[in-house]
């Protein structure tokens, strides 16, 4: 408990450090978008950009939206004819892999030159990067907000902002069903429980894995802990996953997410079933790995907080498997874990997964708040 408190204090300090001294620079992006700019002036909520001889070149507006790892801030430039000139990213908290794709695909090139009325969610040039819909949507929403801001001030034009949708679809329904299966499985014994668990895990593998690639990740935990709560209307799934994880941890003493829903756990079990045998890991190795894993989680959170970039905390190889996106290192990690799954039962879950640390923290906190009398020495 003492170690947990010490770690919490250090992490809170890192978060405080990350959150102070953070006034975004909005002048430099304006000068980058309008290279001939001589003077940039902030009036009525937008930046007015002037060139040689104090001629007005255009305006830049700022837009913000919730991305994968927290809010992103984009600056969008509009010229005096009402066309989008360029987009600059001021703050983003997405995964490095996503950002690498954005750069590689020249993401913002297509939007330049388009009329400000036409920047839409289904704008054809802004192609959503597969497996990163939240990040892509956030970019488009940020641009639209900025454009609407400039349109209102400079052109006296009210551009309708897209209504914030409330999405309850197959993904959300599947999550509820997976937890329902888990609760059912927890109440029965023997072969029925085994069958329910396989059913849940196959469902999780297909829906949370290959179809939607939306398992609980370190990035999402770090985002919540850093105080970035995504819009529940569009990110309901993650709220459901967290709620299910926490409630079942508290009520059943074992979270049912890991047992019934986690797609990566399921992938390892499938590989393990192919391997067919499991090595026993000696207890001293288990203890060593637990300490090492908790330390990794601590370092990951520390990095995320001090930079205020929750997505940096994600070290899981999930996206490599489920969305086929990853760095060489993530592919290598995936390879090691899946190979080890042939010999050791679900090695990622047992030794490396940050969710195990989160679960232990939840269970320890519960025990600390409400000590179980049976465990007290008589």
């Amino acid at each position: 408990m003492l170690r947990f408190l010490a770690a919490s204090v250090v992490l809170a300090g890192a978060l405080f450090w990350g959150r102070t001294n953070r006034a975004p620079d909005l002048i430099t992006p304006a000068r980058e978008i309008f290279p001939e700019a001589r003077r940039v002036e902030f009036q009525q909520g937008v930046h007015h950009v002037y060139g040689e001889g104090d001629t007005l070149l255009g305006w830049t507006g700022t837009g913000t939206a919730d991305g994968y790892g927290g809010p992103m801030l984009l600056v969008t430039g509009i010229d005096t004819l009402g066309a989008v000139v360029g987009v600059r990213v001021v703050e983003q908290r997405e995964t490095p892999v996503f950002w690498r794709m954005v750069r590689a695909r020249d993401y913002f090139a297509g939007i330049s030159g388009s009329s400000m009325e036409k920047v839409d969610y289904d704008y054809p040039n802004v192609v959503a990067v597969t497996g990163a819909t939240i990040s892509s949507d956030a970019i488009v929403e940020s641009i639209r907000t900025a454009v609407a801001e400039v349109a209102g001030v400079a052109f006296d034009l009210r551009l309708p902002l897209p209504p914030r949708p409330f999405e309850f679809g197959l993904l959300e329904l599947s999550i509820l069903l997976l937890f329902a299966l888990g609760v059912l499985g927890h109440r029965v014994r023997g072969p029925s429980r085994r069958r329910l668990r396989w059913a849940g895990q196959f469902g999780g593998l297909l829906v949370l894995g290959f179809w939607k690639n939306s398992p609980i990740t370190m990035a999402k935990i770090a985002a919540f802990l850093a105080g970035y709560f995504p819009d529940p209307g569009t990110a309901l799934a993650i709220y459901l996953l967290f709620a299910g994880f926490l409630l079942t941890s508290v009520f059943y003493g074992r979270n049912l997410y890991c047992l019934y829903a986690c797609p990566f756990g399921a992938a390892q079990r499938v590989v393990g079933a192919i391997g067919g045998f499991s090595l026993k890991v000696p207890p001293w190795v288990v203890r060593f790995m637990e300490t090492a894993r908790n330390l990794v989680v601590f370092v990951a959170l520390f990095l995320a907080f001090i930079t205020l970039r929750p997505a940096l905390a994600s070290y899981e190889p999930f996206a490599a498997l489920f969305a086929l996106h990853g760095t060489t290192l993530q592919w290598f990690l995936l390879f090691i874990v899946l190979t080890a799954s042939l010999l050791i039962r679900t090695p990622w879950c047992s030794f490396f997964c940050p969710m195990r640390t989160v679960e232990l923290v939840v269970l320890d906190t519960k025990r600390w708040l409400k000590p179980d009398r049976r465990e007290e020495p008589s």
Partner: protein
Amino acid sequence: MRRITKGDLGGLFLALLTFGVITAVLVQNFFER
């Protein structure tokens, strides 16, 4: 105390290798942001 087997050493090697790669992933995330 029981003797340390080849299996133990193999497991430990795998564990250290994995933790090494995880650390490298975090370091790469940090520098690529």
